[in-house]
């Protein structure tokens, strides 16, 4: 298998404060990888660095092309969809407009219309509410919308920042099932950052654990789930 995303010696800074201290990892094409870590470990920063939303050094390569120096919008145009923390919903616009915005860089009008219908099949609740302002949706519905919006790009790689945050357990399970389906059926490579380690490890094939801006452990999801330290620190048993 070839690596789709290669991150080498990534360091990121907020002003004078260094948040990442030389992170290296890679994602295989078609894989579903999770990045685990406590609050403030640098998970969100890692995702933001990939999309060049934070000042960083080091090398990031996507399908052989270097991403450093590219603007955020150009990184996205390469096929990397980023579902940010807090979902980034355009709350004053309708559900359907949010989906259209996800596909704003695409030129195939018919394909976009067909994809919107496909999203309504994936997420029937969005179809019911397609003319509503997105801000009136519940948290779970907004997260579904954020995932659907990201998929409208027809991404090759999808980055998700704590999709389970603030959602009821049942909704989280439903969402993760959909993510698994997207990964297998649509062949979208997924990197998901999570605090809900248990669910993330069930879903993923591969996992990295990050602490204070460094990767401290990596392996298959099963290995990580059985690791004594991880179980104590992140799974709580």
């Amino acid at each position: 298998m070839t690596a789709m995303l290669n991150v080498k010696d990534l360091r990121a800074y907020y002003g004078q404060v260094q948040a990442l201290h030389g992170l290296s990892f890679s994602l295989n094409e078609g894989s579903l990888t999770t990045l685990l870590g406590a609050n403030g470990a640098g998970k969100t920063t890692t995702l933001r660095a990939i999309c060049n939303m934070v000042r960083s050094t080091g090398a990031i390569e996507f399908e052989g092309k270097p991403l450093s120096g590219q603007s955020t919008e150009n990184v996205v145009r390469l096929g990397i969809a980023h579902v940010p923390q807090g979902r980034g919903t355009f709350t004053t616009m309708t559900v359907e407009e949010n989906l259209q915005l996800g596909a704003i860089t695409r030129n195939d009008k018919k394909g976009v219309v067909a994809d919107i219908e496909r999203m309504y099949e994936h997420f029937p609740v969005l179809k019911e509410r397609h003319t509503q302002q997105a801000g009136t949706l519940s948290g779970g519905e907004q997260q579904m919308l954020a995932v659907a919006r990201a998929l409208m790009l027809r991404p090759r790689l999808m980055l998700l920042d704590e999709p389970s945050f603030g959602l009821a357990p049942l909704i989280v399970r439903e969402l993760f099932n959909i993510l698994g389906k997207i990964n297998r059926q649509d062949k979208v490579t997924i990197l998901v950052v999570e605090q809900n380690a248990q669910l993330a490890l069930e879903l993923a094939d591969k996992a990295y654990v990050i602490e204070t801006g460094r990767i401290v452990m990596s392996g298959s999801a099963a290995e990580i789930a059985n690791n004594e330290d991880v179980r104590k620190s992140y799974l709580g048993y």
Partner: protein
Amino acid sequence: MELFINQVLAGIATGAIYACMALAVVMIYQAIDHLNFAQGEMAMFSTFIAWQLMQWGVPYWWAFLLTLAFSFAGGIAIERMLFKPLAKAPILTNVAGFIALFAIVNSVAGLTWDFTIKQFPTPFGSSPFLGSQLISTHQAGMIGVTVGLLILLYLFFQFTRIGLAMRAAASLPESARLVGINTSWMIALGWGMASAIGAIAGILIAPVVFLEPNMMGGVLIYGFAAAVLGGLTSPLGAVVGGFLVGVFENLAGTYIPGVGNELKLPIALALIITVLVLKPAGLFGRPIVKRV
């Protein structure tokens, strides 16, 4: 009664100009969160361009279209050269930028075309509209052009891809970048459109106030009053605000003793202050809640 209707209609006509200025102000406010104090001067400069073209023998509507194209390009150029570098600067730096722009445009216009007032033609004529004494054809034309412009803008923002992208960039820049929108160019486009809308306002009001470098001073203050009244975040509010301010100004000038023509301007300022105290978000604006 005839006087009342007359004043209301005349108010709607000048209100159309305030609506255009308010719309231009709101477009830039939405894009960069600042009031463009130089909006009026930019409109005045555009009007001089139209006048110059007509002096050279270009027919009215060709001059109109060429001026719009020039203003659009000029608005983009100003954003790229002056305000893009200031994007992350503090508010006061931006205000200084606007004042500098105001002074430069005003002086360059004065230097090029001097400060004597000039006649500006109207394509609509100034005979009574439809035989009625209430309103002139030029006033009716001002209303018609503004309403047409509004409909076009509405269609643009609701039904075109680039309009959707501009709305997204204005409401949530970070999310807009994450769907691949080049927000920086959306801001420049907003400047170009605001500048062109201002040019329309200038060209329409010039036959009434006459053309000279300081012609837009009062108009811009009414435009600000309209934008504040309607809500700085709402293009629709800006337009409704424009018409309301126009009518209010005329009725106050007519019926409140001692106001007359001379004291109309303080009324606009009083209106701004009243709205900011009683309903800061304006009639149609949404209150801005910032998380701290």
